[in-house]
Each structure stands twice: as structure tokens, then as C-alpha cells.
């Protein structure tokens, strides 16, 4: 047993290391910063710096435990984007909610760090730790409105069910460890292929336990029940962050584990995922129709979008994964944009969460209404917007792999989804305003919305940039 003498090669780890150090520095600085906007600004600068390091890093470290390839950097890009946008829309918001503590931003950074670790985890242990790091910071963020019982309830539910799910994950890990003697994904894949023990019930058990844990994380159908309550209870900016970042991380891990470790069992776990995906789309779309609270509606819509992204995973292959990643990237902008508009309605003394609060918004605030219209149509998947491109790529991948009927089912569900998205547009444009609605806008918030709208429209019209990026990312997989 040689003792490690020289420093391990950490070039691949630079983004994570930089993120950790700067997050800690931010934590310290926060003590001295009076105006919290500066903390937010610093958080964004940190994100930018990490983004800068992201491009350079590729390769593996710590004997395969840390893999930094195209796949992980694309996902890290999504995490950073969602971090920046969430921070921008939460500056004004947490001041209104009077929880304007610096820790909010550092927790955001830690959760992003957790996601980045998950994305580039080559070993199940590191994956679990990354997941826990992200989850813990999210439990706290969900309960950030200490005075609001809804927020407490949200964090409690998220915590209990999160712990429950990670217990299943651990049980699965122990099972795999028992069967293959290793927790390294590539080694597992190699072992399963070599010893032909792939279809052993115990392996299938661990596969299913992983499906449960990751299903919980991306809020797929039977494991989705926490999402509506947590999304509704948590502060809206956290909900925005939560509905994009962790979901993408969940998919990153789902992809990583199932395509490398259980690559051989593709047929089996695809068979498991198909009913799951259909159930997720069904639950997400159908239950969203009768919602009255807009955050809850968007929660169900994000469940539905998880269902659509699952199709990419089921299709598998280069195109399938690329379409999933592309969809999640576009989904990040659409969703945070939509939540951004929801946040604008939140002013002193006016919650602005009920759908009926949006009546006549087009008359009182035409710009806000127009933005919401763009996001709603993008979420439905109507062509000139990015939502359509995302779905189109997904269905193309599915049809290429012969899942035409699945694409058909998904297409029908996205038609059903048109109903509740359009209901919002209908409330805004076709109803007379009841009370005079004031909007709380601020410069960063404006920037975030502008970025989101431009992204949604630009990708909608010129999607080749993102598609190429996603394709190149998968090539490295």
C-alpha cells in the first residue's frame, strides 16, 4: 500500500474546486456585506468564473471516481445557467419575503456544487454524496421562509421523502456492491457483461431501487407526489431553481448510471421506464388542468416535462441522450422565465399565486403578459418557440429508435397540456382586470426575464447551436 506522495492530477476538477473555494469565500464575505445585492452579484461572478474554468476541464481523476467529459460539462452548463437565473430573480423576491440573508446565495452555490459533483460522478459513492449535498442545501432553501408554515411544511415533506428515497438509493448501492464487488460504474458494467449475471433478480432489484431514488429526484410519476406541495410551499425563487437544477442533475445521474453501469440491461430498464414516462406525462398534464394555484400548476407541468425528457432516455443511443439534454437546457429557460413572471406578481401584501390573479394582466401590464405568453406557448411546444424544438428533437429520437407510438402518446399529452397553459393566456388577455395589480420589478429580474425570453425565441428559430452542442457533448459520453 503505497502512500500517496504526489498531488493527484486535479485539472479535471478545477471547476469544482474553484466553486468550493469561492463559495466559502462568499460565505465569509457575507458577514461584512451590508447590502445583500452585492452578495448576489458575487454569486453570479462566481458562477461566471466557474463557467470559464468549465471549458478547459476534461478527463478523469481519482481513478475514475470523477469523470469530466462533454456529457458532464453540458449538464454543468445547465446548472450554472439555472443558478444565475435563479439568483437574479430572487434578489428582489427575498427582500420582499423579508428573508434577505446572505446564506441563501451560499446555499444555492453549495447545491450547484452538489449537482456538478453528481454530473461528473463516476462512482456511486460520490454520486450519493453529491446528491446528499445538493438535497441538504435544497431542504434548507425550501424551508427558507421560516415564518411561513407552508414553507416549513414544504421542507419537512421534502426532507422526509428525500431521506426515504436516499435510503432506497443506499440499499441499491449496497446490493450492487455485494453483487459486483465495486461501486465504480465502468467496473460494474464490465463485471455485469463479463459474468453474464445481468438478468439476475438481485441485479434487477438494485436497478429498480436506483429507478426509485432517481425517479424521486426528477419527480417521475409514482414518486412525484412530493413535488406539488414542495413547489407550492417553497419560496418561488427556490421553486424555480428546484424545478430546473436538481431535475437536470437527476437526469444526469439517471443517464450516467443507466447508460454506463447498466448499459447491457438497456432493454430491461427501458421497459420499466416506458410505463413510468407515460404515467408521469399523464399525471403531470391531467392534474395540472384543475389547479387554481399557479405554482402548483407549474409544478405539475414540470412533472409532465420530466415525462417528456424520459422519452429521450428511453430512446437511448446518441440522439436520445442528446435530445434529453437539449430538452432540459431549453426547459431551464422556459421554466425559470415562467416562474420569473410569477415572482413579479408577488408584492407587499399580494401573494399573486392564484391563477385568477392574472385576469386582465395584458391590459394593466402588457409586457409582463407578453412574456408570460411566450413562456406558456413555449411550454406547450408551439413552433416558433424553443419548447417545440426540444420536443421535436425528442420525438425524432424516439421515432428513430422505433418508439413511434410513444411519440404519439407524448404528442397527445402535449396537446392536452395546451389547455391549462392557454387558460393562463386566456385569463391574461381575454378577461377584464379585477383589482389594480402592481408588479415588483427590478433590474436583475428584468435581465433574467430578458435572457430567458431571448433564449426561448432564439433557440426556437435558430436551434442548430444548441443541438450541435448537445450532440458533441454526447459524443464524449
Amino acid at each position, binding site marked *: 500500500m503505497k502512500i500517496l506522495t504526489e498531488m493527484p492530477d486535479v485539472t479535471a476538477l478545477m471547476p469544482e474546486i474553484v466553486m468550493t473555494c469561492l463559495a466559502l469565500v462568499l460565505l465569509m464575505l457575507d458577514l461584512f456585506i451590508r447590502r445583500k445585492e452585492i452578495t448576489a452579484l458575487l454569486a453570479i461572478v462566481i458562477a461566471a468564473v466557474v463557467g470559464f474554468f468549465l471549458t478547459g476541464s476534461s478527463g478523469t481523476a481519482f481513478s475514475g471516481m470523477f469523470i469530466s467529459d462533454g456529457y458532464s460539462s453540458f449538464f454543468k452548463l445547465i446548472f450554472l445557467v439555472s443558478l444565475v437565473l435563479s439568483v437574479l430573480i430572487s434578489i428582489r423576491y427575498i427582500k420582499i419575503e423579508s428573508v434577505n440573508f446572505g446564506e441563501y446565495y451560499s446555499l444555492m452555490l453549495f447545491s450547484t456544487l452538489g449537482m456538478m459533483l453528481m454530473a461528473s460522478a463516476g462512482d456511486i459513492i460520490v454520486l450519493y454524496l453529491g446528491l446528499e449535498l445538493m438535497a441538504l442545501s435544497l431542504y434548507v432553501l425550501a424551508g427558507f421562509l421560516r415564518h411561513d408554515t407552508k414553507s416549513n411544511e414544504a421542507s419537512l415533506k421534502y426532507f422526509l421523502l428525500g431521506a426515504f428515497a436516499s435510503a432506497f438509493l443506499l440499499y441499491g448501492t449496497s446490493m450492487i456492491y455485494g453483487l459486483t464487488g465495486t461501486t465504480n460504474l465502468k467496473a460494474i458494467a464490465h463485471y455485469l457483461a463479463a459474468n453474464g449475471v445481468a438478468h439476475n433478480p438481485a441485479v434487477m432489484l438494485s436497478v429498480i431501487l436506483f429507478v426509485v431514488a432517481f425517479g424521486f429526484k426528477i419527480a417521475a410519476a409514482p414518486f412525484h407526489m412530493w413535488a406539488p406541495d414542495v413547489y407550492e410551499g417553497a419560496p418561488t425563487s427556490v421553486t424555480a431553481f428546484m424545478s430546473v437544477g436538481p431535475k437536470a442533475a437527476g437526469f444526469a445521474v439517471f443517464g450516467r448510471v443507466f447508460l454506463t453501469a447498466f448499459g447491457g440491461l438497456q432493454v430491461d430498464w427501458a421497459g420499466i421506464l416506458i410505463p413510468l414516462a407515460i404515467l408521469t406525462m399523464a399525471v403531470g398534464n391531467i392534474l395540472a388542468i384543475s389547479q387554481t394555484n399557479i405554482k402548483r400548476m407549474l409544478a405539475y407541468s414540470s412533472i409532465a416535462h420530466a415525462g417528456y425528457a424520459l422519452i429521450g432516455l428511453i430512446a437511448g443511443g446518441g440522439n436520445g441522450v442528446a435530445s434529453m439534454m437539449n430538452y432540459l437546457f431549453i426547459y431551464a429557460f422556459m421554466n425559470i422565465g415562467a416562474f420569473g413572471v410569477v415572482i413579479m406578481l408577488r408584492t407587499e401584501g399580494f401573494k399573486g399565486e392564484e391563477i385568477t390573479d392574472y385576469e386582465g394582466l*395584458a*391590459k394593466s401590464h402588457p409586457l409582463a403578459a407578453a412574456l408570460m405568453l411566450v413562456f406558456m406557448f413555449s411550454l406547450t411546444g408551439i413552433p416558433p418557440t424553443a419548447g*417545440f424544438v426540444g420536443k421535436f428533437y425528442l420525438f425524432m429520437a424516439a421515432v428513430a429508435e422505433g418508439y413511434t407510438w410513444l*411519440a404519439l402518446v407524448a404528442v397527445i399529452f402535449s396537446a392536452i397540456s395546451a*389547455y391549462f397553459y392557454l387558460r393562463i393566456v386566456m385569463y391574461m388577455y*381575454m378577461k377584464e382586470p379585477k383589482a389594480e395589480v402592481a408588479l415588483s420589478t427590478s433590474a436583475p429580474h428584468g435581465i433574467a426575464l430578458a435572457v430567458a425570453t431571448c433564449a426561448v425565441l432564439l433557440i426556437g428559430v435558430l436551434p442548430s447551436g444548441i443541438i450541435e452542442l448537445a450532440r458533441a457533448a454526447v459524443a464524449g459520453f
Partner: protein
Amino acid sequence: MNGLAYPILSTLIFLPVLGAAVILFIGRNQERLTKWAALAVSIAVFVLSIPLFTDFNRMTPLMQFTESHAWIPSWNITYFLGVDGISVLFILLSTLITVLCVLISWNSIKTKVKEFYIAVLVMEGAMIGVFSALDFFLFYLFWEAMLIPMYLLIGVWGGPNRVYAAIKFFLYTLVGSVLMLVGIIVLYSYAGHTFNILELMTKTYPYRMQFWLFWAFFAAFAVKVPMFPVHTWLPDAHTEAPTAGSVILAAVLIKMGAYGFLRFSLPLFPDASKAMAVPMLTLSVIAIIYGAVVCLAQTDLKRLIAYSSVSHMGFVTLGIFALNIQGLEGGILQMINHGVVTGALFLSVGIIYDRTHSRQISDYGGLATVFPLYAAFFMVFTLASIGLPGLNGFVGEFLIILGGFTASKWAGVLAATGIIIGAAYMLWLYQRVFFLETNQKLVGLQAMELREVITLLPMIILVFWIGIYPDTFLSFMHPSVQNLLERLNTGGQEVTLAGKIAEIIK
């Protein structure tokens, strides 16, 4: 090849959108400026579209004024535009109709004037896009993009029950077109990863796949036409839409369904189209008679004209699925005629609706004495609608019945009964509105403005022009329809019902 120096089709698509963007920045209170700007843009687009009419080469079936730029290389999608005999007339119709819509809603739109004209102009861009797109992705993009402005047009400026009508319109069309989306993707993956329609047309597809894809495309186009079972959105959308909305809906939107059959279903799935001709003919005949008979029971003016559109479009689909040259050319010409006539009828209804704010026929009567010029205009359009020879309706209808008769005698005969019922409900409508004693409500009616006369004038000219000398319009279509028929007869290999070919649809 592109005879002109500048990319005419792209300008036609993006000029209105640009105009809409300009209007966006006009102040909310300067309504007059907004209106004039919108009118200027729409006229400019119309003027720009005239070269399409004059410089069109009537000898070749190939696509003209083509433009092709790489758009999304990773999916092999090109921004590919072009027109041929079939689609050029529709573009001209769209540009003309938009000008008239801007004119007609001059002072009938009171609220959110800016957004209204933006929606109309964006609508125009999308419409032209649909007719000139030759890349499936681009086609689908315009096809769906058109839904949004129309949804807002009906929903925001519509009548009392507008919200229900708007949502119904949107969902009806969306459900149909998403099935087409899957169809497009299956085509894309089977035909070697290309969206280029012209390339797709050269390939042959197994019958079983043609069958399923035909029905997928049918879902989208039948809703738009609207064919018999899926037509119930039209009366609601028409009655609730503002005048401009129902004119665009009647004149152009409905044509996209039939255009879709012509451009996609027939050439791409020749065997399936031939096999499905009989059910299609039955549906069309049902639509003709059903639409006509139901008009007899209507009390709302716009709803009656809407149902008459169902009947007229039944003729068009009959023409298309007669699968012979007279039927096809009659169908295309009838689409233009229907656009002109029904568009004009809705313009006229708009004119009196601005004055009386009522659509119930019982509120009218004896309008001829109060409003003679208007009565004359309406009479010409009524006669054109019932297919009086010498006016435009007859030429199209006669060719269709001729084509239908050759295709199947039953279809021809039953379709011909449509003209009887058509005459019945239109003349009965005309009598209840214009003849009999003058209704007290109508006494103080203000005469027709010059603006309104100008709006209806082009329609009158077109009605007589197509009626007396249809050759100018028919000559556009000959080569393209000929080409389409050749593809139909030779394109798909013979029908192998055994389905032994690798079946793509799992």
C-alpha cells in the same frame, strides 16, 4: 429559379412581421397612426406580391421564386421556400385579404388596437409562410405559428362567447396537427433524414406506412378544411371572431387544410390517396349536403355563412379526391372562389354589424330600401355563393361536379343536389335580411362609407373576372396539376396489401 432580383417570398413573409414590430413601438394612444401604419404595411406587402402574379411562368410545373438557405444543418433542415401553380394564388389571396381586413376593422376595433394590428400582420406573415414553405419543418412551424395570432384574434376581440370559441379552435387544430407532426417525423426518419418536400416526393413508401401517414395528415388537414365530422369548431370560431378574424379564417385559414391535401397527402402517399378516395368522397358529399341543410336552421347570420363554408369546402375536397384534372383544378379554383366570396360575405356582415351590433337575422329585414348599394353588393356575393354562371362560383363548382361525376356517379349526383339547397338557404337569407318590410331598427342606418365600398370593390372585380374569364387563374394551375396527377398515377408502386415490406410502424 428566381426571376426577380430580391428574395420575394422571404420579403412577403417577414415584411408584415417587421411592420408589426414597428407598430409595437408606436404609442398606445396614437391609434390613428397605428391604423395608417398597418394599412401602409399591408398595402406594401400586397404590391410586392404582384410580381408573383405577373412574372409567374405558367408553362413549368417546377417551383418558382425558390430560396434555399441552410437553417438547421444538424437535422438537415433548410429554409426552403418556393411556389408553384397550386400555391401562388393563395399567397395573392392572403395579401389581398389582409389589406381588406385592415380596412374593414378601421373603427370596429376599439380596444387594444395596437395588438390587433400586430396580430393581423403576424398572421399574414405566417399564412404566406405556410403556402410557400417547401421544407416540412418550416411548413409545420408556420402551420402552428398561425394558431397563436388567430387564437388571440378570436379570444380578445371576439363576441360574447369568444373564450370558449378560441379555446375550441386552438385545441381542435392543435390535436390534429400534432398527429401530423408525428407523421412528419416518421417520414423524415424513413426517407433518409430529409425534410425537403420535393425530395420526399421522389421516394416511394410501403403501402402500410402510406396508409397510416395518410390518416395522420388527414387528422390535421381535415380539421382545418373542415371536413364533416370535425367541423363544429368553425361555426363557433366564425360567430365569435371579430370581422377581420372571421374574414381571414374564412378566406385563407380554411384553405390551408385543402392545400395540405394537395401539397402533401396526394403526392407523398399516392397509393393511400387512391385507396382512400372513396371514403373521402363520401365525407365530402356528406359535408356538402349536411352543411347546406343545417344552414336552413340557422338564425345567426355569421353562423349561417360559416356552415355554408362547410358545404363549399365539401365541394373542394370532392374536387381534390376526384383525382382527375377537372376535379383538381376545379377544387383549387373553388378554394380561391370560396376565399373571395365568403370573405366578401363576412366583410359585408361586418359592415352592417358595425352599425346594428346584431347578428340575429330576425333583427334585419327590408335592408334593400334603406341600404340599396349594400344590397346590390350582397346580392352579387350571394349569387356567386350559389354558383350562378357568369360569376366565379359556377366555374369552380361545375368543374368539381364534372370531376366528381367522372370519379363516381353517386358523388357527382349527390354533390349536385348541394347547389339546390345552397340556392335555397342563400336566397332565403337574402330575402329575410333585405326584402320584406323595413325593420324599425334599421331606419336610421348611416350610408356606406367610401372605405367600405373600397373594401368590397376588389372582391366584386374578382367575382366577375373569374366568372367571365377564369383562364387567367386556371392557366396558373395546368402544369402543376398535371405534374401532381402523373405523380399520383405512377409515383407509388402498386398496392401490396400483403404488407411484407419491413413495417416501420411498430
